[in-house]
């Protein structure tokens, strides 16, 4: 069953196309990641999928409703965790959930009935009457997630859900997202953390300049585009080592600043060679989603 679909979606601002024909299809119960550098078109895509921005071309169906025409009907069964917290600072934790529920047409009694489960999900039972300013960053993030569940949505949009959180809070967030997936919810996630996408996503799409660069399950994509082994080499003399040995020993090798990235099928010869250069430090690891992301989108800084 398709929960969300988009075909040929385009959007230009002042003659500059920021989304140039995006297609996507989310099946019920999957976690789908939308990855891309800053300015790749992720936020505009999310806004169009929710019916908050009108596309110039393309078709979008959100939970069976055409968007943007019937976006309001579509959003009745959608939860959104925005990139930046927009909790109501004038209200307590409990009031935030009650007031937000009203936007979905829920009565106070209906939200009151869901409240204990939402507070438990967010581990905020003891904080129900705290003001928002008294909550830590992780607590606020959990409350935003609980708020997105107030209407018991089928589909949840998460825009960079763990940006700015410490490792403990990130792991807590992942646990909760897995719980939601086990309950059969569908998730659309954007993130800058490749480990997060690799951990959570069943499928993902990497976009840049408004176009799809790759789409599929993370491990298939890595296997398809990236050599299985990576040796990163650092040190002052890395440049000469790179041109004399690194390139020769690797299937593919790149030098960025003082780091050489050697992509290999068999790391043993390169590691044996590096033992002869005590001034160089190196790290051997498996090829990962970050390698793929950087290969497809380049290493230049984005504004």
């Amino acid at each position, binding site marked *: 069953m398709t929960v969300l679909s988009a075909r040929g979606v385009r959007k230009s601002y002042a003659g500059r196309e920021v989304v140039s024909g995006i297609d996507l299809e989310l099946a019920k119960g999957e976690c789908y990641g939308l990855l891309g550098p800053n300015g790749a078109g992720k936020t505009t895509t999310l806004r169009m999928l929710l019916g908050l921005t009108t596309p110039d071309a393309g078709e979008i169906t959100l939970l069976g409703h055409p968007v943007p025409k019937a976006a*309001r009907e579509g*959003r009745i069964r959608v939860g959104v965790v925005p990139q930046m917290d927009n909790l*109501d*600072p004038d209200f307590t934790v409990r009031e935030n959930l009650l007031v937000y529920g009203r936007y979905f*047409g829920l009565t106070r009694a209906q939200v009151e009935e869901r409240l204990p489960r939402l507070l438990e999900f967010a581990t905020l039972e003891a904080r129900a009457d705290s003001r928002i300013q008294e909550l830590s960053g992780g607590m606020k993030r959990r409350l935003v997630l609980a708020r997105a569940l107030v209407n018991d949505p089928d589909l949840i949009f998460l825009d960079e859900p763990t940006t700015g959180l410490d490792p403990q809070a990130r792991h807590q967030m992942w646990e909760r997202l897995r719980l939601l997936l086990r309950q059969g919810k569908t998730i659309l996630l954007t993130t800058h953390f490749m480990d997060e996408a690799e951990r959570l996503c069943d499928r993902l799409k990497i976009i840049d300049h408004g176009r799809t660069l790759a789409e599929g399950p993370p491990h298939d994509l890595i296997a398809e585009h990236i050599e299985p082994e990576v040796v990163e080499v650092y040190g002052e003399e890395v440049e000469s080592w790179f041109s004399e040995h690194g390139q020769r020993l690797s299937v593919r090798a790149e030098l960025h600043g003082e780091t050489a990235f050697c992509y290999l099928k068999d790391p043993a010869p390169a590691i044996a060679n590096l033992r002869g250069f005590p001034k160089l430090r190196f790290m051997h690891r498996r090829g990962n989603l970050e390698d793929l992301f950087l290969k497809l989108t380049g290493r230049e800084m984005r504004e």
Partner: protein
Amino acid sequence: MMKVSLSWVAVWRRNYLVWRKLAAESVLGNIIEPLLYLVGFGFGLGAMVPEVDGVKYIAFLAGGTICYSTMLAASFEALYSGFARMHVQRTWEGILNAPVSLEDVVFAEWVWAASKSFLSGAAVLIVAAALGLAQSWTMAFILPLAFLIGLTFAGLGLIMTALAKSYDFFMYWFTLALTPMMLLCGVFYPLSNMPGWLQAVAAALPLTHAIELGRPLLLGRWPEHPMLNVAVLLAYGVGGFLVALTLFRRRLMS
């Protein structure tokens, strides 16, 4: 073009709930400021200006003060509080992710600012009544009038909110629109004291029409051109709201 649904009520209630938390302070402000105006100007100036239009100066001033206070109440709400909810706190962003449209949100803000104006009007009415300045049954019309004045100035104010980059921008509206209106539209003196060309300018400004309704109603008289006054206030309010909505769409939904 207008697609306001009943969801606006939920947004209005959100603002009402926040107000209720700070209601004591808010009502206190609504009462004390007009009270100071009436007592200060009414008695201070009133000693030198014994009578205007056949009534004591303080009674003359009360009608202007009600219109001026309600204008300010709606303007502060639509500009500063509206901007906080739209931009600073991102409250609108959260609401728009729910099945609520921008039209619902802006309509709710409009009606809410007018509701604040209503509350302010009620507070000044109580002050005026306590000072013995409102004794006629016509003063009951002050309450719907306060709401209407609120719609007028909230509609216009929301245009400023839709254009604002920061709070500083609102100084233009206060210095170039609201303060001139306070000084030129007859809050403190009869318009007939002004030169003809200034009277003509004032006749085009909404606060003048508010005062042409509010002052006689408080003094127990019937306004001279009530239909015209109501029509002008509504035209400014509805026109302002529609322009603001177009600007908000451009700003937030493009």
